[in-house]
């Protein structure tokens, strides 16, 4: 142990001089931020599981950031709960020195956890020049799982949960919760959901639908309302469980496994938190060409996703410049293209200066993509993150273990 300590002291790097915290920077002038950011590198932690998103970040955003602002963007793995662990452990073990990460891709539960662990810097987001372009009237953008971002995160994009099916194989796809249950009972073994985030989002959508709408759960976490919602959901699940894939005795480990089962025809539905994933997956030939997204009539959960700056960020200035660029009309437009990522914009398109509104209108609409009006009419906001945490825990305890 002594040896290691000696080694530790010898190796202890002082690290790059930390830039001022984002809160301080936001109070100053934007030009100062830009000049501080020039020549720096931003390590951006995000979900790296989708080649389409990776291509957008690495191949489109990064070169423009370098050319326009002199900022290198290094996108690395680290999302959701793991991100919280990384940031917390870094802060704990590095004793006040700057960490590795300057920007994080977050929302909902992760935002709540980072806030409660005091791991986010801010407020800074409202001071971004492009913050004025954001569609702040949208309930989905302005409230992150009912939380006020309060300037600790800046919106980046918007997605909506959708079921995915093969329109050639399943022409009679159900469009409501009750029709779905009936369909499942008529087609034993052809439906399931995964055990992680996507699966839980599906269950939450059903829970809202069965309770007559998301309103029943709005206004913070309420134990009583949660229990009622859960009981309805679990009795619905119990009624379909024998007809689920493998009789509901086991569930695919993650959404990738769902996609694999769907592609091979083992099940007739897969699902995604992004209504446009079906478009990119068809293009990658992972899904058959007739695969389509489907929104239940009761509505499906839509949420915005954001970027935040960790409290121990080594380069807050660069992170702010990047966050601002991500909100620029050009970056938002590119991101929304079906053949790029298909992630909806968070900007108030109508109030953008010309020619942006028409350009957004003109974004090529893929045959497999859902019309924007339909998406908007069926989008349901997220509720307090505790509903998700409780539902996950209870589902594992009862439905997964087969002991309701």
């Amino acid at each position, binding site marked *: 142990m002594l040896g290691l300590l000696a080694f530790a002291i010898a190796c202890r*790097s002082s690290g790059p001089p930390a830039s001022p915290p984002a809160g301080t920077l936001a109070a100053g002038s934007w030009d100062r931020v830009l000049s501080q950011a020039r020549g720096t590198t931003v*390590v951006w932690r995000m979900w790296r*599981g989708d080649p389409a998103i990776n291509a957008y970040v690495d191949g489109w955003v990064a070169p423009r950031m370098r050319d326009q602002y002199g900022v290198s963007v290094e996108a*690395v793995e680290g999302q959701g709960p793991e991100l919280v662990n990384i940031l917390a452990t870094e802060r704990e073990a*590095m004793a006040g020195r700057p960490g590795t990460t300057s920007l994080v891709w977050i929302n909902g539960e992760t935002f709540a956890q980072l806030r409660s662990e005091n791991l986010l810097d801010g407020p800074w987001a409202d001071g971004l020049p492009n913050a004025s372009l954001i569609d702040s009237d949208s309930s989905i953008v302005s409230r992150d799982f009912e939380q006020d971002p309060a300037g600790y995160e800046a919106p980046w994009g918007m997605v909506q949960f959708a079921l995915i099916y093969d329109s050639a194989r399943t022409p009679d796809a159900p469009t409501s919760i009750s029709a779905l249950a009936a369909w499942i009972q008529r087609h034993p073994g052809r439906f399931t959901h995964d055990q992680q985030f996507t699966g839980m989002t599906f269950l939450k959508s059903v829970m809202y639908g069965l309770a007559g709408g998301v309103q029943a759960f709005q206004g913070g976490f309420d134990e009583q309302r949660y229990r009622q919602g859960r009981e309805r959901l679990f009795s619905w699940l119990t009624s379909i469980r024998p007809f689920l894939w493998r009789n509901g005795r086991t569930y695919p480990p993650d959404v990738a496994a769902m996609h694999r089962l769907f592609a091979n025809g083992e099940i007739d539905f897969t699902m995604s938190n992004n209504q446009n994933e079906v478009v990119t997956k068809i293009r990658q030939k992972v899904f058959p060409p007739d695969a389509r997204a489907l929104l239940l009539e009761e509505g499906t959960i839509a949420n915005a996703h954001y970027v935040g700056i960790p409290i121990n960020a080594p380069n807050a200035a660069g992170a702010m410049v990047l966050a601002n660029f991500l909100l620029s009309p050009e970056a938002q437009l590119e991101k929304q293209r079906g053949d790029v990522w298909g992630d909806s914009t968070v900007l108030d398109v109508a109030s953008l200066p010309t020619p942006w509104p028409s350009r957004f209108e003109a974004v090529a609409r893929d045959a497999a993509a859902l019309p924007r009006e339909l998406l908007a009419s069926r989008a349901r906001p997220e509720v307090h993150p505790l509903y998700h945490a409780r539902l996950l825990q209870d589902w594992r305890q009862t439905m997964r273990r087969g002991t309701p």
Partner: protein
Amino acid sequence: MIGARRDGFLLAALGAWVLTPIAVLIVRAFAQSWRFPQILPDATDAWPALSAAGTGRVTSALIASLALALATGLFGTVIGFLIARSAVRVGRRFQQLTLAAAFFTVIAPPIALGVGLQVAVLGIGLGGTFTGVFLAHLVPVTGYLTLFAVGVFASFDLSLEDEARTLGASPWQVLSRIVVPLLGRRLGEGLILGGLVSWGQLAITLLVGGGVVRTLPVELLSMVQSGNDQAGAFAALMLSLPPMFAIGLLTVGARRTGASL
């Protein structure tokens, strides 16, 4: 030769058992779509896999993995042989303790070992750096190589060193003229073994590298988790080829020196 009955059937079965999964991965890597109930894919095209694998990313991950394997193999061999040599020379009790420590780093679950490494590496300010991941890999690599080197020293006459000293050789000369030439092949095997151990690390890389240091297994995991099997199979093959080459080297080396594996 007793008990070693020549059994062609057994060899054929072994070959099929080992090669079938590799063949399936190869087919998958070249299959654009391969849906039930096709026995063989109807459209083969490696390009989507190549482009999805994002050639630049995979190449840089390949370089990182190779550099890590080489560096940890090299340092791990030196340190492992040093530890083993000391352990063999000192008393039995101490030897048992050293071996237990080495054994522990080898079989401790990567998740459990990873937590300690993460705290230790972050504590010295090397989290998310190549150096940090290198130090973290070095721990299990050295553990393996210590056990390996103890086995080597068991059949190595340490008194040769003393004899060389009495013949007038300096410690450095003993090392360069006696120990290294005698252990030559074993040192090479250690290097390859250590490289293989580092090559396969995933949990430790993720925890210590924090996603910033991207090795091939990290890339492979994210591809498999995105549900893109073609890219995953492609990366899997990329990940398998260098170790296969190393194994080939090991067997050829064994044949040339006439030694058995």
